């Protein structure tokens, strides 16, 4: 049933229909209608011989991910049920980015059923999909846009044929609308009643047309999230909400320094005898307890007396890591003979913790294992867990659950691996939860980095742009590495290491700045790192945009005009012009307040952001208990062009979230490394954007589609948001910020102890009822 792998295969258009494209899908043998298509659309992957200084225009990360799947991808299936509903198991993770909604919309569009009748669930790990079950790089809609529609179109075709027999009318005379087929006579039949007749007794190939864009009635119109009702009624189930038989609460007593190892436990028996405790076992990352409630786990973890061995970052602090980064910096080369501007920027470690902490359920038996967790790389998780448990991969079932946020965190499966180890060692099912303090201190962090930028110019002409980005090593060991290895020979970046490859593929240069070179160097693998939403781009773009502002100041030009005239791409220019116009760029503002403007391109998409910031003392020093106030972004205007937008309301939601991330990255949120551990252990230590930091005025503009193809959205908006806030801050205060977040030198909280590793549960809740 497989074709030659270039799927969904596109056939040459018929002679009478220029631009009409036919696609190949399948009808699978099943009792009711199951239509299928191969997941990866034909790649835009590109001839490596096109000369261009911009590798990202030739081939970006998304193309690599899409192309990697081509020869190996399995089928995705759209199923029509007798109750008239349509279901689809999406081989991706829903972690809040809202991919189940546009996926439902694609099916509803092509099948002409109401969105409410499409049920999109998350597929278990499917090893046969190989690289094609990785959720990342804002790739989901880019890679599923065509195949999902092809499968739905095959289903539609089969339903119409079955209806033709049922209603005694030619297929061409039938209309399918809202899940009902109508004949010219007025007779109707619902798709549920056709689900059996439309089924195939043996698997067949089918060739279909896709609905032309001018006939879209669902795609491109604002759609509320398909899981919204479940979310607002408390019915949406996350991993910790699942009721798996006998999977009792479990937590881990963790070391006081990063990746410390457990030594002797002084009071094992005493803790085993505590109320509710069923098991206490030493595991590779600490000492695990299993009990009747998480409250009992907290008490047991706090009671454990463990001798800890050193970790992988012993004695290290922000200052010492910064020194390492300086030492690892690639040379900038000789200063240019022409005038230039140059800057150095430092970015602190940042936490990519979601609100849902690391968690997983594991039920490990001697011959098999079952795992439940929100996983963006479930196949790698399955393989790694199987290896750790010494079980065949096929004996490990991995269920992908709905995730309570990711921001990069759920690319990894630390909790799933740990839960499997605990379940194996106790011989019982466990529901593992990391305490917030664990999540902040031992969980993954976006690496500390430094970026140096030099822009050489003569008069109004920019001659060259150089950026040297130096970072603590980012762990990409969640499947992207395997993907790049497989694709390495086909990538026009030679044999560069993964990280450099990723860097080159994800970092664009939207400005015509002459000869440009951007290089990454990494150092120190001693930290638990992982890319945070938008990976390298926020830091790299922030440094670049600040230097564009500096260049403008040095050469007496307006920052917006300099950008506008330097942009190489019409889409980027249109987005920039849109925010300048909607945000009234250049309006007169009081001293201590200012506008900032910035631009970023990635994922075949463009984002421009204009913000206004208030840095006056009465604002900066406004009181908030246990919070960081600081400068406030008072207004933001965001323009986004992702090409074809499937769901504008969802796109606006993603841009809103990205803006909040960008505000946090510039103004408030960083981790402080001291003596081998992070000081932060609470949401009132790590200052992600809170209501008091949000812009009272916000406008998000979705630009008209000029490409006809979807781009990526989930991470797109972070970089320009961070940069625009930084630029505004620099213009309001007259001092370009060079260290991020800007409040990093002030510790705004009292650090919690590291032993015991988690704080006691408070008892004064009734005093705060309001």
């Amino acid at each position, binding site marked *: 049933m497989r074709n030659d792998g270039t799927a969904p295969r596109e056939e040459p258009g018929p002679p009478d229909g220029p631009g009409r494209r036919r696609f190949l899908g399948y009808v699978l043998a099943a009792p009711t209608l199951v239509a299928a298509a191969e997941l990866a659309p034909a790649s835009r992957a590109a001839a490596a011989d096109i000369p261009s200084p911009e590798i990202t225009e030739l081939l970006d990360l998304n193309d690599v991910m899409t192309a990697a799947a081509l020869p190996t991808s399995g089928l995705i299936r759209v199923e029509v049920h007798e109750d008239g509903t349509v279901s689809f198991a999406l081989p991706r993770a829903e*972690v*809040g980015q809202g991919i189940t909604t546009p996926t439902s919309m694609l099916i509803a569009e092509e099948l002409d059923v109401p969105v409410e009748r499409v049920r999109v669930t998350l597929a278990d790990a499917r090893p046969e999909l190989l690289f094609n079950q990785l959720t990342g790089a804002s790739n989901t809609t880019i890679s599923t846009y065509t195949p999902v529609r092809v499968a739905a179109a095959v289903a539609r075709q089969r339903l119409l044929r079955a209806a033709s027999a049922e209603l005694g009318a030619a297929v061409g005379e039938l209309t399918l609308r809202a899940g009902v087929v109508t004949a010219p006579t007025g007779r109707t039949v619902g798709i549920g009643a056709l689900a059996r007749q439309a089924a195939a007794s043996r698997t067949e190939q089918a060739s279909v047309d896709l609905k032309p864009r001018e006939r879209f009635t669902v795609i491109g119109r604002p759609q*509320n*999230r398909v*899981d*919204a*009702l*479940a*979310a*607002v*009624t*408390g019915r*949406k*189930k*996350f991993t*910790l*909400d699942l009721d798996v038989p006998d999977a009792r*609460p479990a937590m881990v007593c963790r070391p006081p320094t990063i990746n410390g190892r457990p030594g002797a436990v002084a009071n094992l028996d005493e803790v085993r005898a505590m*109320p509710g405790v069923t098991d206490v076992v030493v595991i590779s990352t600490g000492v695990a307890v299993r009990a*009747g*409630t*998480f409250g*009992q786990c*907290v008490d047991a973890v706090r009671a454990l007396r463990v001798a800890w061995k050193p970790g992988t970052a012993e004695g290290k602090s922000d200052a010492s890591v910064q020194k390492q980064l300086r030492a690892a910096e690639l040379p900038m080369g000789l200063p240019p003979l022409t005038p230039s501007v140059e800057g150095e920027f430092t970015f602190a470690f940042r936490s990519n913790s*979601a*609100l*849902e*902490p690391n968690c997983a359920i594991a039920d490990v038996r001697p011959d098999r294992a079952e795992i439940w967790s929100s996983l963006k790389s479930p196949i790698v998780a399955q393989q790694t867990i199987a290896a750790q448990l010494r079980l065949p991969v096929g004996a490990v079932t991995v269920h992908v659950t*709905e995730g*309570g*946020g990711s*921001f990069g965190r759920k690319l990894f499966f630390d909790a799933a691996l740990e839960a499997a180890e605990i379940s194996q060692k106790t011989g019982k099912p466990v529901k593992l939860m990391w305490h*917030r303090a664990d999540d902040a201190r031992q969980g993954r962090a976006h690496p500390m980095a430094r970026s140096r930028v030099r822009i050489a110019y003569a008069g109004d002409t920019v001659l060259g742009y150089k950026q040297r980005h130096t970072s603590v090593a980012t762990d990409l060991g969640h499947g992207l590495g395997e993907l790049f290895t497989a694709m390495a020979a086909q990538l026009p970046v030679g044999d560069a290491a993964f990280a450099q490859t990723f860097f080159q593929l994800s970092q664009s240069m939207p400005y015509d700045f002459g000869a440009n070179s951007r290089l990454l160097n990494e150092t120190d693998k001693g930290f638990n790192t992982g890319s945070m939403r938008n990976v390298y781009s926020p830091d790299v773009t922030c440094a670049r945009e600040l230097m564009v502002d500096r260049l403008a100041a040095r050469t007496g030009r307006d920052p917006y005009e300099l950008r506008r005239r330097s942009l190489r791409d019409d889409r980027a220019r249109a987005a920039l012009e849109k925010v300048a116009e909607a945000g009234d760029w250049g309006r007169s503002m009081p001293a201590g307040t200012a506008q900032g403007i910035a631009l970023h391109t990635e994922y075949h998409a463009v984002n421009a952001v204009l913000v206004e910031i208030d840095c006056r003392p009465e604002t900066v020093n406004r009181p908030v208990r246990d*919070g960081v106030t600081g400068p406030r972004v008072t207004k933001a205007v965001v323009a986004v062009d992702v090409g074809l937008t499937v769901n504008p*309301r969802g796109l606006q*939601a993603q841009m*809103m*979230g990205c*803006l*909040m991330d960008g505000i946090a990255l510039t103004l408030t949120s960083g981790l402080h490394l001291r003596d081998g551990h992070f000081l932060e252990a*609470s*949401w009132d230590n790590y200052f*992600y*954007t*809170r*209501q*008091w930091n*949000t*812009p*009272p005025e916000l406008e998000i503009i979705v630009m008209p589609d000029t490409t006809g193809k979807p781009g990526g959205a989930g991470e797109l908006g972070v970089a320009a948001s961070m940069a625009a806030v930084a630029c505004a801050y620099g213009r309001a205060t007259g001092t370009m910020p060079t260290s991020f977040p800007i409040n990093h030198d002030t510790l705004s909280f009292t650090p919690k102890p590291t032993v015991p590793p*988690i*704080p006691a*549960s*408070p*008892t*004064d*809740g*009734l005093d*705060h009822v*309001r």
Partner: protein
Amino acid sequence: MPKHTFRLNGEQVTVDVADEERLLWVLRDVLGVTGPKYGCGINVCKACTSHLNGRAVNPCAVPVGALKPTDEITTIEGLADTVDTDLHPMQQAWLDLDVAQCGYCQPGQIMAAVALVRRVAEENRDITEADLDGIRNICRCGTYPRIRAAIRAGAAKM
């Protein structure tokens, strides 16, 4: 172990747990009521926000022994039953404005919003920007502006 009794979403419940067990774990681990979420366990993130006799409370910081038999705990699961419609107006406003992203914080956000609206109504005033700035519930997806808009819309119908 001691027995504790209190009212939960309109019904009297009795549990056999230690006095100091926090209400959050009584709800989630003993009674299977999972709407209130864990996000920090130290009354900071507010993901577990529920109501005690109609006011916002954070069960992660309340020992179950501190509850009286007549105390009424309302979680997100019981919010709609406090009104005559299928959904509470605040939940409906949340749907209308498509507020939720991942949804993890949303039960707590909605319960905090309802309590805020009740509080300002008791003070005979309208919700201010300062009231909205004062909401401490974390939303790591950053849907804060839609939360603010939904609170104002929901308040208008409460």
